[in-house]
C-alpha cells in the first residue's frame, strides 16, 4: 500500500505492507533509527513517538498504514538545528540516560506530557512515564531532567514574543517532499 506520512515536518510517500509496524517503517523505510524496539508486548515504550503533535503512542503497537495522512514526531525531530530541545538538554544535564536505548521513547513521552502539563509534579512525571521502561537510571534523574526541561520551557514561553513558536513546537512550516 502507498502511504503518505509527515515525519518531523517532512512529507514521505512510501510503499508498505499493511503488516509493517510503524516503528519498523520509521526505522527501515525512512532510516530514522532513533525509534527503538525493546519488546513484543507493548510494555517497554522504547518505540514511543508523537502522533499529530500531541499524543505519545507506542509505534510498535500501530501499523504504518494507520499513520497514513498523519504527522509523526520522532526523537530526530526534537532539536531545532543545532539547538537541543529543552528535554534533550535536561536529559543531558541531569544524567537522565545511561545506555540510551530507552531515551528516545522517554523523550517523546515527556514531550507529550509537557504539552498538556507545563509544570508537572514529580508524581505526575512518574505517572506519565510509567509506560516506558528504563533498566539503567532508576528513573530518578529522568524525572529531574523532565522538571528541568519544564522549567526551561516555562521560562522561554514567558519571555517569548507572542508571534514566536513555543520551544516545544515541532518543525512544521515548510513541508519538503523527501525523495
Amino acid at each position: 500500500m502507498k502511504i503518505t506520512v509527515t515525519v518531523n515536518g517532512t512529507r514521505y510517500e512510501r510503499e508498505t505492507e499493511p503488516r509493517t509496524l510503524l516503528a519498523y517503517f520509521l526505522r527501515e523505510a525512512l532510516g530514522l533509527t532513533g525509534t527503538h524496539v525493546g519488546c513484543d508486548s507493548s510494555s517497554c515504550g522504547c518505540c514511543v513517538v508523537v502522533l499529530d503533535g500531541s499524543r505519545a503512542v507506542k509505534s510498535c503497537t500501530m501499523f504504518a498504514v494507520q499513520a497514513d495522512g498523519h504527522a509523526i514526531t520522532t526523537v530526530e525531530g526534537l532539536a531545532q538545528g543545532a539547538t537541543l530541545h529543552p528535554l534533550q538538554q535536561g536529559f543531558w544535564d541531569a544524567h537522565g540516560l545511561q545506555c540510551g536505548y530507552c531515551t528516545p521513547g522517554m523523550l517523546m513521552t515527556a514531550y507529550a506530557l509537557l504539552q498538556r502539563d507545563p509544570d508537572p509534579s514529580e508524581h505526575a512525571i512518574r505517572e506519565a512515564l510509567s509506560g516506558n521502561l528504563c533498566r539503567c537510571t532508576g528513573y530518578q534523574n529522568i524525572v529531574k531532567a523532565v522538571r528541568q526541561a519544564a522549567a526551561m520551557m516555562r521560562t522561554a514561553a514567558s519571555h517569548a514574543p507572542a508571534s514566536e513558536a513555543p520551544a516545544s513546537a515541532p518543525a512544521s512550516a515548510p513541508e519538503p517532499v523527501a525523495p
Partner: protein
Amino acid sequence: MSTTTEQPAFDRRALGVAMKRKEDPRFIQGRGRYLDDIVLPRMLHLAIVHSPYPHAKIVRIDKSAALALDGVVAVLTGEDLAAHGLAWIPTFHGYDKQMVLAVGKVLYQYQEVAGVIATSREIAHDAAELVEVEYEPLEPVVDPFEARTDRVVLRDDREHKTNHIYHWEVGQREATDAALASSDVRIKEKLYFQRCHPAPLEPCGAIADMNAATGRLTLYLTSQAPHAHRTVVSLVTGIPEDKIHVVSPDIGGGFGNKVPVYAGYVVSAAASVVLGVPVKWVETRTENLTTTGFARDYHMEVEIGARSDGTVNALKVTTVADHGAFDAAADPTKYPAGLFGIVTGAYDFPVAFTELDAYFTNKAPGGIAYRCSFRVTEASYAIERGIDLLARKLHMDPAKLRCKNFVRKEQFPYPSPLGFIYDSGDYHTTLNKALETIGYEDLRREQAEKRARGELMGIGISTFTEVVGAGPSKHFDIMGIKMFDSAEIRVHPTGSAILRAGTKSQGQGHETTWAQIAASELGLDPQNIIVEEGDTDTAPYGLGTYASRSTPVAGAAIAMAARRVREKARGIAAHLLEVSEADVEWKDYTFRVRGIPDRSVTMQEVAFAAYTNPAPGGEPGLEATYYYDPPNLTFPYGAYVAVVDVDRETGFVKVRRFLAVDDCGTVINPMIVEGQIHGGLTEGFAIAFMQEIRYDASGNHLNPNFTEYLVPTSLETPRWETGSTCTPSPHHPIGAKGVGESPNVGSPAAFVNAVMDALAPLGITHIDMPLTREKVWQAIRGAGG
C-alpha cells in the same frame, strides 16, 4: 596558589568532576548506532525455531514447507551445523559445551532447533512457523534437588552419566562445624536466591558479514567482551583470528546478559559463511528472556554461630546451584562458583566454610554475573540475611550487631577466612554515616509507636562488601585468557588524543570517565580525548566490561598508559625547557623546572613538539599502551538502609525511604556514580519484589515476555537517597574500586531485612524473594495476622 601560566580553557582537575557525558549528544538525538540500526547491502535475516518442549527427542525436522516459501534462502538445523563442526560450542567455563542448534534432543523449553534465513524479518518469521519438528517428549527435570537423584540423567553427551556438574568448597569444614557446635547461639535458614534475568532493553543480536573476496568475517555483536568473542569464534570455527573482526556498536544495556556467545551469533555467522552475504539476527524479547543468560538460582542454607554477646564464631553456607541444561556460567576458570567466597562479608569470622554443588536441569543455561561480580550478589544476600536473623535471635539491634562484628579499619589488609585479602575499608564510619543520615534512632522510635498501634513498619540494613576487579592473572582467567585489561593512548600534535580500551561501555559512560582519568593524568582537556572501544581491529586486547571490572582493571590501565605517555613527554619537556629530565617535575598538570615553577610547558606544548620538534635522538610521537595486571581485587562496600510499610490486608510493601551510602574509593565522576547507584538499586528493588524467572513442574517457562517478567516502572520505583564515604584502594593507581554493581549486590538484603523487620511482631522470620503481595499476605495470614 598563584601561577604565572595562562589559565587553560578547561578545568584540569578532571578527576572527581561531575562532567556531563560525552556520549549523550548522540543518544538524546536518536543518533546512537545500536546493532539493529546497522543495515548492510544484500543483508538477509535469520529467525530461529524454538522447542516448545523442555526435554524431548527430536524425531524429525521437515524443512520443506519453510523452504517453499517465497523469500526463504536457507533453513539450517543442528545436523547442518554438525557438518561444519559447529553443532556444539564450548561454554565460557571451558569444561562444558553447549548446543548451538539442537542435535538429537532438546534440553530446555525454547531451545534453538533450527534457523531460517530469508530476505526479510517478516518472511523469516513466517517460515520459522512452517518448519515442522516432530518431538518425542521425555520427562523433564525441573528441580535441582530432583536432578541430584540422577533418576533421569539429562546429558547423554557427557562421559559421566550424572546431573552433577561439580562440587566446590573453600574454608575449614571441621573447624567450622566445631565452632558452630560450641556456639551459644546459632541460626540456620534456607535462602533461595531466585533465578532472574538481566533483560537489558536492547535485545541481543548479531550481523555476520563474510567477505569471500577478503576472507574476512566481520561480526557486529551486542557484546560486552568483543575480544574474548573474537577468540572464541576463531577457536570454534578455525578461522584465523586476524580474519575475524568483531565490532560491538552502541549497546542498549548489558548487565551480564551480553557476555556469553549465543546460538543466533553462531548461526548467523555460519549462514553468512555459507551464503556469502550478510545475515542479521535480532532476538525477540521472548527469545531474550527464555534462551539467553539467566542469573542466580542458588538454593543456599546459611548457618551462623555466635557468642551470647553477639560476637560471631563461625559461618557455614551450603548451596545447591541450578545451572540449567549446560554449564554456561561465565565464571573465571578457577572459580566455578565465582567469588562466592566473599560470603563472610564485612564481618570478622574466625572460621568459615562454604560448599556448593551444581546440577543440570531442563532449564535455559546461564548463570551469568547479572550486575554482579561473579556470585557476589548471592553471597552478600546470604550473609546480610544471616546477620539479621542472628540479630533477631539475639534480640539485638541489627546495626549494633554489625558494628560489633565488622572487620576493623586497622585490620586492613584483611585476610578473610575464605581466602581473599580485603584491600581496604572503614565499615564503622560508613554505617554510622548511614544511620545518622537517615535518622535511625528516630525511625526506631516511630516504629515502636506504630507497632503499638498494630502497624507494620520495618527498617532493614545491609552492610555488604563486594569483591570486584577480576583479576590478578595468577588466579583469574576465562578459557585460559588472563583477566588483565588494556589501554592505548595517542596524543595528537595539537594536544587532543584518542584513547582505546579493551572494555566496552553499555551505558556506564566510559567515553566520559576514561577521558577524565586520562585527562587528569595528562593535563589535557577531557573534551578533547575521544574514547573508542569495541572494535577488535583497533582496540588493544581486553576481557571486556562486566563484573565491575572496568574501572579497577581498565581504569588502572588507562592511568598507567597515561603515565607512560607522561614519562615520554617528560623527556620532550626537558628538551623544550632546556634542562635535564631529572629537573623536570609534573606539578599542577604542567611540566615545571624544579625550583623554578615559572619555567613550564604544558602537555599541549609537549605534544606539538613530539611531532614538530622532538628531542634529538629521541623517538618522535606521543603514545603508549599499557596492559594492566591487577595485583589484587578491589573491595567496594556500602551501608544501606531501607524503610518500609507493609499493608496487612494486601501484603503490599511500600518502600518509604532507601538510603545507600557507598564507598567505592576514588570517584571519577560523582554524577555517573550516583546514576549507577540509582540504576543498581532499582534492579535490586526489582529482584527483591518482582523479578523472577519461574518454570512450572512441567518445565514451562512462565515469564517469557515483559507482561510476565516484571520490570518496575517509574511509579513503583522508590526515590533513592545516596551518600558516600571514600576509602581509596591502596593498590589501584588512582584508588578507584568500581561501583556499578554495589547497589544491586547490597540492596536485596536491605529490602528483605526491612520487610522481615516489619513482620517481626508476627513472628515471621523469612520469605524468599521476590516479596510479592501474595507471598507477604500468605505469611501474614499464616502467622494469624
